[in-house]
């Protein structure tokens, strides 16, 4: 796989995407937890 041409660009693109998506996912979940603590359970209509 390292013998791939343009390996740097491909790697940057895929890793960047993973970081962006993962980071955003973590941010959303964290915000969700924080807000969940402030809202009574009755208002949450999932799980």
């Amino acid at each position: 796989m390292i013998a791939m041409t343009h390996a740097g660009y491909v790697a940057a693109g895929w890793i960047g995407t993973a970081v962006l998506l993962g980071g955003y996912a973590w941010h959303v979940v964290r915000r969700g937890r924080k807000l969940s603590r402030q809202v009574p359970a009755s208002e949450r209509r999932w799980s």
Partner: protein
Amino acid sequence: MTATTSPRTAAGAPQPADGAAAVPAHTGSRTTRILGVLALASSALLVLYGLVISPPDVEMADSVRLMYVHVPSATYLYVGCFFTTFASAMWLWKRTPGWDALAEAGAEVALVFSFITLGTGSLWGRPTWGTYWTWDARLTSTAVLTVLLIGYLALRRLDLDPGARSARVAVLGLLLVPNVIVVNRSVEWWRSLHQGSTLSRIDPTIEGDMLVALMVGFLALGLVFAWLMIHRFRVAWLEQQADRFDLDEALALRRAEAADATTATAATKGTA
């Protein structure tokens, strides 16, 4: 009447008075857990197909592998925008807060995908065309779309009475897809005068393992998109509830203070 304690100062989630089992404090559910697992699994499959199994392109060599991410993420960018416009229209019709939350989720998730689209697009452009930025139709209109989304989210962050804000935001959201269409069409027309075809267009004769990789890309990113949308929607929903809860609690505190004040005055008057 005793003053109510603010739930925010309590260490844990406010417990229901009847002692029911504590509900976990997060935006997850069985649906999102299943979705999450599927998303991770298909992402692994994508890595396998995209980076290993599929062959390098005849012309583009290995940079074609960026297309397996770029094309689906551009698609889901548009899907997110569609959610925002649709939800804005529904809000203007029904005026229920759930639609407002959906519009917000759509725009923010779309913004994330727009960065991915721009990033993978320019990283693809560098080895292929020698520059990070080419004014090709897709990159250019995605750049404009990114600014449109940033503007929309900026209007949302304003500190306004929620009723007034929702109306403005809904009108802006409703115009999002029409704006995107107009911008896309005019930019494509413009660039078609200078270039033969769009750079980022995947060769329609794509086949074999490359086609599979692209399909897996659509699947994996689609599942991630859905997972993010659900969680972000719930966050927006919770925010609305928290705002309302804030208001109720503030009112309750005020009433409590007023009650204490009158009992205190009565007490001092009584003892005087």
